[in-house]
């Protein structure tokens, strides 16, 4: 722990390699959150705070308790003052467990990273007193833990995250469909996946999620090699999901790959943007706390906050 803290102090962020050497997922999450916590305290941003949301004209049937009398005094009209839900954020972590997540060019895989990321988020939110749920999926739903905030739940969640990724293919559509059915209370949906699936199904299902009022965050976890396609020798590429083999000469195929990959990424980003979901691409060599800080900064810049419902 002191070593990690030292690393953290040196780089400003926690060294990912060192972090990933820690076996316990919960410990990893704690370390990240601690560093992040410090960062928050130093930062001008206040994170998820209690915020005024909007005024709405009173209609008969509204609870008169929320009438803003000061506005009434000023304008002689009844207004209802709405607040963000400050007490119970219901966050669901949707973690991709498909086999494509087992790829990793370094010492850890995308799945390791995604689990750490999910664990960190869970830990962080749990610390804040928010309810955290987990839905891990591949081509179907593997684990589902409803969003709760009670002792032992975090532990259960960590155990569930520690299960190895064993799914065959990435199918986002089915889990998203299922989460819509399962979670009827609006909340935060954090989708952690490599999104190596057709964008079309992502758009359809993500649309339903946003349509039901969920705040959706897409964290796309990618390996640096997937982005750079940094290969020199011609290789027989084996698709971990489809089990297909393809002989590829990187010198010839790299351009096309990068183009297609970028197009896919752009399309995913465009879909998220269109549906009002946050999209953040993360590579597995990025420090986790930096990722979280970036994300928060991005949210802040967009002037968006996590919707809080007074009483979800």
């Amino acid at each position, binding site marked *: 722990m002191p070593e990690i803290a030292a690393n953290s102090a040196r780089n400003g962020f926690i060294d990912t390699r060192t972090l990933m050497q820690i076996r316990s997922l919960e410990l990893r999450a704690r370390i990240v959150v601690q560093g992040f916590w410090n960062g928050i305290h130093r930062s001008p941003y206040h994170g998820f705070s209690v915020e005024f949301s909007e005024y709405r004209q009173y209609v008969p049937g509204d609870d008169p308790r929320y009438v803003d009398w000061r506005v009434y005094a000023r304008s002689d009209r009844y207004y209802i003052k709405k607040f963000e839900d400050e007490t119970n954020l219901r966050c669901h972590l949707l973690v991709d467990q498909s086999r494509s997540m087992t790829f990793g060019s370094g010492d850890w895989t995308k799945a390791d990273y995604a689990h750490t990321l999910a664990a960190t988020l869970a830990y962080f939110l749990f610390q804040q007193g928010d309810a955290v749920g987990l839905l891990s999926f591949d081509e179907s739903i593997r684990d589902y833990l409803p969003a709760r905030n009670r002792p032992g739940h975090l532990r259960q969640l960590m155990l569930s995250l520690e299960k190895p990724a064993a799914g065959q293919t990435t199918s986002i559509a089915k889990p998203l469909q299922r989460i819509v059915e399962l979670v009827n209370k609006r909340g935060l949906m954090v989708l952690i996946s490599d999104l190596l699936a057709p964008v079309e199904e992502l758009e359809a299902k993500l649309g339903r999620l946003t349509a039901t009022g969920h705040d959706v965050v897409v964290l796309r976890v990618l390996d640096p090699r997937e982005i750079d396609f940094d290969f020199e020798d011609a290789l027989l*590429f084996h698709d*971990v999901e489809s089990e297909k083999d393809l002989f590829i000469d990187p*010198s010839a*195929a790299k351009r096309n790959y990068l183009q297609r*990959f970028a197009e*896919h990424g752009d399309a995913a980003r465009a879909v998220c943007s269109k549906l009002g979901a946050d999209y953040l691409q993360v590579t597995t060599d990025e420090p986790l706390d930096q990722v979280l800080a970036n994300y928060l900064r991005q949210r802040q810049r967009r002037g968006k906050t996590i919707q809080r419902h007074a009483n979800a």
Partner: protein
Amino acid sequence: MSFLAPLFLLGGLAIAGPVLFHLIRRNTREKFTFSSLMFLRADPPKVTRKSRLEDILLLLVRCALLAVMALAFSRPFMRNTVTAGHDATIGQRIVLLIDTSASMQRAGIWEKTLTEARTALADVQPSDSFSILTFNGQTQPLLRFDQWRDLPEPSRLLAAREALNGLQPSWGSTHLGNAILTAAELLEENPHTGPQQIIVLTDRQEGAQLDGLQGHDWPGDLQLTLKTVAPTAVGNAGLQLAPGHATEDADSTGQRVRVTNSGDATREQFQLAWSQGDTAHTNTVPVYVPAGQSRTLTAPRRPAGPNWQLALLGDSETFDNTLHIAPLTPEPVRIHYLGRESAEDTEAMRFYLERAFSTTRLQHVEVLTHLPSALEGKLAHPDDRLLIIGEPIEAEHVDRVRQFAESGHSVLLPLKSDAMAGTLTALAKSGPVPLSEASVEKYALLSQVDFEHPLLAPFNEPRFSDFTKINFWKHRTLDPARLPGARVLARFDDGDPALLDLPLGSGHLFVLTSGWHPVDSQLALASKFVPLLYSMLELGQTGGRLKTAHFVGQPVTLPGESDTARTVTGPGPDAQISAGQNGFHADQPGLFTLQGSRPVTFAVNVPARESRTEPLAPERLDGLNLPFAPGSVEKAEIEQNREQTLIDEQLEKRQKIWRWLIVAAIMLVLLETWLGGWLWRKPTAAKSPGEVT
């Protein structure tokens, strides 16, 4: 090194495969597990831009393997080459063989031949022995070794040149095989330590005969040089008698002739005409013969008059364009019949006999009937062939008849009655031969016919051998044991002899135990009657018949008696045939006449093979395994064509180099496997742990 199947060497191009594979670096053992192939497309492997070959050693082994396989499949073999060069101080023995066949008369050949001969002569060293032979159908010495040796050294070359000066091509055929063998034998006759050489100057035409060369055991130091002398113009058409029609009469039906055109000919249109001398042509017909083909056609009618010859016009090489055809004269044949019957008596044998023989193109048969008592002074004419005794003869004539038979003629004795017993007994001279009338129930048929006998041999075919349609109403019975030496040629179905042959000297006495007149049998009306009589005529022929078609260089067997000297006249000087000889050799084509009491004309033509003037196929020479001198044109030419010959296959089978190559290939496969495995393991161990394989 030569190859039996050189096309397989193209398999060596497969070497490009490994080179390319090593260049494109498609090394499938490096398997990389990737998250998703959804952004990758199967592109065709491309050659590395660096042009860097990987695993050079493995590549070399693979290339060597393919090369060895290709080499093995092409079935290589080594040709034993005789090393040239000899000690110049030891003289050579050189035989110069000069082709003087008719085809050497073609334009431009003879001058070149003489030039070549003089060149060969100029190369002769003082220590060499030299001999010149000329050959066509026969091989004749022009300058012998002993003549050369006996001459003083300065005059040797001069004598040889003089001998060459008088040389002219003949009209004979080309027997190259005999000539080379004769030359080789000449060299072998005089054992010699130095090298021996045979130089053949020939046009090497397709029609040359190569008999006798196959399998000859050539001495090791013998070298054969075949110098081909080419004519100034290729192509030649020839005119020959069509086989099987050589004796047909040109005056009546027209002569069947064949016009051949060589494969390298440029002309196809010719004319066939009768000519007299060089200018007069008549009865011209056009002939179209494509190159390499022949046409058999009927020659135009022969004009009246002597000295006409059939000529082929339009061919540049004229040596074989004239065909001499002897006009046919029917051979006179006399048959004697002893009997008293009237010529018009249809119940008698004479009536049928005289009608059996008609005058044909070949024979003019005359049937002479005499009374049995009037035999005196007869049977002395050279045309007499057959005597038929229809009546008992007097005892004083028996000896004359026997003498006639013993001189090679045929005598037929039909036993038309028991009264003939005495004549039979007298002629057989073997004691009494009892004769009795056989009891025939309805009719008797011939059976047990001896087709082996020359008399009945012409019937020895299923379609002619049916004698069962001839009914014999009556016949006589005799005991063949009473006739020692007699051979029963046919029997009646009751077992009695029907036809017997009693050889008398070089002739025959045929005994028919019945007659052919209607009272005795249907024989005269049967289709077998006339051929049977002609068969007897043939057996009674003493001198043999002269063929009318002969070739230059082939011996002509002259007909007739040979106890006196005879003269043959022809286009050249008259030839004298001494007594006891009946062979004649014509040295040029033309019409020849055997002078005598009855002159016989026969034609001698240029051998048909001489018209085949295309160059001899090298395969034919190659198959003979001739001891060609190394570096000679023929050797190179033959080696080009060797792949197709049996010799090469045998050579290849004997050497079996391909087996060693296969062994080498197996070794290379093992090496490649080991090397491949070693190289496989090597980089795998050094692979980074992050790369999934």
